[in-house]
């Protein structure tokens, strides 16, 4: 049998002699260096942008220090106390209690021991710092905490021990001996009561009946055959697991919100549902999922119309929704999507167009201003259609677009003016276009003026 009692020592490791009195061992020095780098990291992470040289250098320094320790001594482990980090029984970092003391922050989260294992990678360090920074200051209504976030991150080379004893024994004691699975002996009621409903919920089997004995799974014919999983079934199960993603949940949640809006008759529910939909809508816009965003916008429009008719108490919630989603910066981000037109599918483009058409006319002014940036012919065509829709309803939009440098847009507005057949409008807007430098614009202007006998 192999005798592996000695650890292989790298050739450049320091000689294994005990340190002289007053001198620290190489291990402690290496640990101090690593912990100092980590402490610098937690304090400075986020001060500069990720691509800034300071950030890059800092992260590399942290990783280097921990890796150097790990190559010789294995995992870097320290205990966490209220104000200090302890290595091999001695404090290696100390500071006053508070959000600025990493030891305190970890201690407050319930962490008693922390380990960086060999093989640590930079992305794990980054993630750890991100999580630490996020939870460094405790929120009033915490939705989460540092330990939970670390758990979810599942960093493969970072380990910790954390207490989950968030209550005292007295607060959580369950006297299992005192629990009773059955109703009190003197309680009323038949053994089994029928319930409306169908399927298994309606089935009732009294324990005294023959059916009770016969219903056991053990008596199922061909039980072994039933219990075996075929290859096809295994694959189906795997596919089910793979498909069960949070993104799918968002879509279902949207439909659920509309169900609540339709069925519930309390203002707080409407506020909560519309607040939820607002966030999801903005997320969809940010991710250019315009079909999904349009679904929300269109259905909210319908619900808002119902509210006007029969649920006036819900109107403030709708107004709040529109107040947020129609903010100029939101509109700007929509318009900013146009340069990416070429990468979007046809249905997404159509949905984006539908969203823009639903928005108030003032958006058209932004579209007019952005028109120059749109180079793809199909996108230009859709842009023009949207502007035309708004221009038909809004004179300011019409005037702004008419004065565009883009000939295509000016001609489209001339067509709208022709269609509107309003002499006053013609008199007000067109005369100067007789002298426009673009021949087609001049010709169309003259035709419209002539049709109204204006020369």
């Amino acid at each position, binding site marked *: 049998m*192999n005798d*592996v*009692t000695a*650890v292989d020592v790298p050739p450049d490791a320091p000689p294994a002699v005990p340190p002289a009195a007053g001198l620290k061992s190489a291990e402690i020095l290496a640990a101090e260096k690593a912990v100092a780098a980590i402490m610098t990291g937690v304090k400075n992470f986020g001060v500069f942008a990720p691509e800034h040289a300071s950030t890059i250098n800092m992260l590399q320094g942290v990783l280097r220090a921990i890796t150097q320790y790990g190559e010789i*001594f*294995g*995992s870097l*482990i320290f205990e966490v106390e209220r104000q200090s980090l302890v290595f091999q029984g001695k404090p290696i970092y100390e500071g006053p209690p508070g959000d600025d003391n990493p030891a305190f922050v970890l201690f407050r989260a319930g962490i008693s*021991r922390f380990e960086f294992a060999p*093989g640590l990678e930079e992305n794990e360090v980054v993630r750890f710092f991100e999580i630490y920074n996020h939870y460094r200051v405790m929120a009033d*209504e915490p*939705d*989460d*905490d540092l*330990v939970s976030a670390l*758990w*979810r991150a599942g960093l493969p080379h970072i380990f910790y021990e954390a207490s*989950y004893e*968030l209550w005292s024994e007295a*607060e959580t004691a*369950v006297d*299992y*001996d005192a*629990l009773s*699975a*059955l109703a009190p002996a003197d309680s*009323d*009621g*038949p053994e*089994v*009561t029928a*319930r409306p409903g169908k*399927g298994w919920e309606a089935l*009732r089997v009294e324990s005294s009946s023959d059916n*009770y*004995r016969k*219903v056991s*799974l*053990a008596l*199922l014919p061909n039980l*072994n055959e*039933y*219990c075996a*999983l075929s290859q096809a079934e*295994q694959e*189906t*199960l*795997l596919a089910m*697991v793979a*498909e*069960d993603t*949070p993104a799918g*949940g968002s879509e279902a*949640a949207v439909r659920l*919100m509309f169900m*609540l809006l339709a069925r519930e008759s309390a203002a707080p*529910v409407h506020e*909560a549902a519309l607040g939820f939909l607002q966030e*999801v809508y903005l*997320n969809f816009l940010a991710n250019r999922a315009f079909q999904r965003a349009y679904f929300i916008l269109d259905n909210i429009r319908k619900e808002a119309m119902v509210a006007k008719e029969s649920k006036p108490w819900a109107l403030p919630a709708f107004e709040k929704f529109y107040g947020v989603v129609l903010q100029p910066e939101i509109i700007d981000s929509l318009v900013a999507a146009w340069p990416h037109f070429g990468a979007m599918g046809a249905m997404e483009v159509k949905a984006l167009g539908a969203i823009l058409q639903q928005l108030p006319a003032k958006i058209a002014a932004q579209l007019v201003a952005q028109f120059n940036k749109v180079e793809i012919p199909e996108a230009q065509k859709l842009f023009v259609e949207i502007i035309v829709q708004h221009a038909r309803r809004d004179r300011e939009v019409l005037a702004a677009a008419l004065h565009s440098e883009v000939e295509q847009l000016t001609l489209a507005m001339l067509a709208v003016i022709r269609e509107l057949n309003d002499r006053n409008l013609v008199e007000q807007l067109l005369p100067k276009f007789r002298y426009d430098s673009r021949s087609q614009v001049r010709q169309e202007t003259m035709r419209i003026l002539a049709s109204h006998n204006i020369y």
Partner: protein
Amino acid sequence: MAEEGYSAEILPAEQLLQALQSLISMVKIYQANNQLVVSGINQLVKAAQVLLAGRDWVVVHLENGRFFINDEKLLRRKGAANILENFYTFLSDRRIPGFRIMPAVATASPEELTGFVQLLNSCGDQSEPAEWLEMRLLETGVGWISILQVDENIQARKEHPPEELEAPGRRYPKKIYAYTLRALRETAETIGEGKRFGMRKTGRMIQAMVEEISSQDSRMLVMSTVREYSDQIFFHSVNVAILAIQLGRELGVAKDALERLGTCALFHDLGKLTMPPEVLTRAGVLSEAEFALVQQHSLDSARLILQGMVAPVARKAAIMIPAFEHHLKADLSGYPALGWRKSPSLSGRIIAVADAYDALTSARVYRRKPMSGDRALGLMRVGGGNAFDPLVLKAFIRMLGVYPIGTLLDLGGGGTAMVSRSPLTDDLTRPRAVLLCSDDQGGVSRGEEVNLAERDATGEHRYRIVGSAHPSVRNIQPAQLLI
């Protein structure tokens, strides 16, 4: 190196043992070419190669509650303790003292590797499992692993005094259960006060539950048998969370998704908190109007989560939906009626199965006597119609076995036993059980644990199962007896 410092070999040693532990359950469900199995095999081979560097073999042996890797005690790291403890128990249950891995592991085919694990799973009903395993390996010409035999140079050493199998884990399931119950009660109280509820404590407890269950520890499953008639909503919700997470794990759901699943399951009946108490406690027949109130509860659960839960939108959505779906039924014929056709999510289908099982095995106002686990499963299988996803139900049955943990078994002349652990072999009707002894006070105490799959010299099962019953007939809470 500090005495309790972790050497560079700790991680590959843990990874090797963890990979074997994971493969043990995976090969029961999946074929050798399944990606989960392939991933487990790769981890096993990779870890073995690291340990084999410069060596002719790696020996893993069990002694006095600890693993030894090449005669070096494997230090117990908290993060891996549960999994290793359970693998230790798996091997020691089968009286397998250890094994030796050779460099040929690098060139062994996936079929060879999974074949070994399948043999491990099957050896449980042999009278001499280690010997039987070694013979099978020799017969099939497997060259990458050999099984240590009981008398092979392993003796208690003075420098490693016997230590009790460290069993802090045995305290954890009860604590986790109690704390999760507390977290749910606090959430309910906060909802009752009209306030929003944070997820910090609930999140931590569900994560602790996922960790405990992820160590393939059936003791958490034992806790799902806890029953309390007068406080049903809370105990039921914790039980459904345990069953759902356990089932999700069996299906290969990732840890973070298990947390979401467990949280949905814990909150699935929050809506019942807003139901009129007289409807909840009505023993007689419900009117259609009253049943309509009952049917409202899943939508109300979603509403309470929407309005009350302090969480980002994406997380809220992930928790709300399965809670909303759990009575929809797989064919959408349940409630509430949807205005659209979309099958329930996997989480919704899992919770539906777990919810029904716990309900059937609990006493309710409308069914004073709970059903035994095998009967509840039988009813769900035969009478469920399209209520349950058939594959999810099958996976649930495979997970629990035909006689789930806590079921009382009448062994005829052999006395009475309580199912304590899942079957060791593929025969789902033959779990492990503890024999029950009557004590002087008219109660029962726990006797030895037996493997009901064991056969005698004639090849017949040593124990006959004549009948089954719910543990409440003997006034037993299985968790008190089994943990």
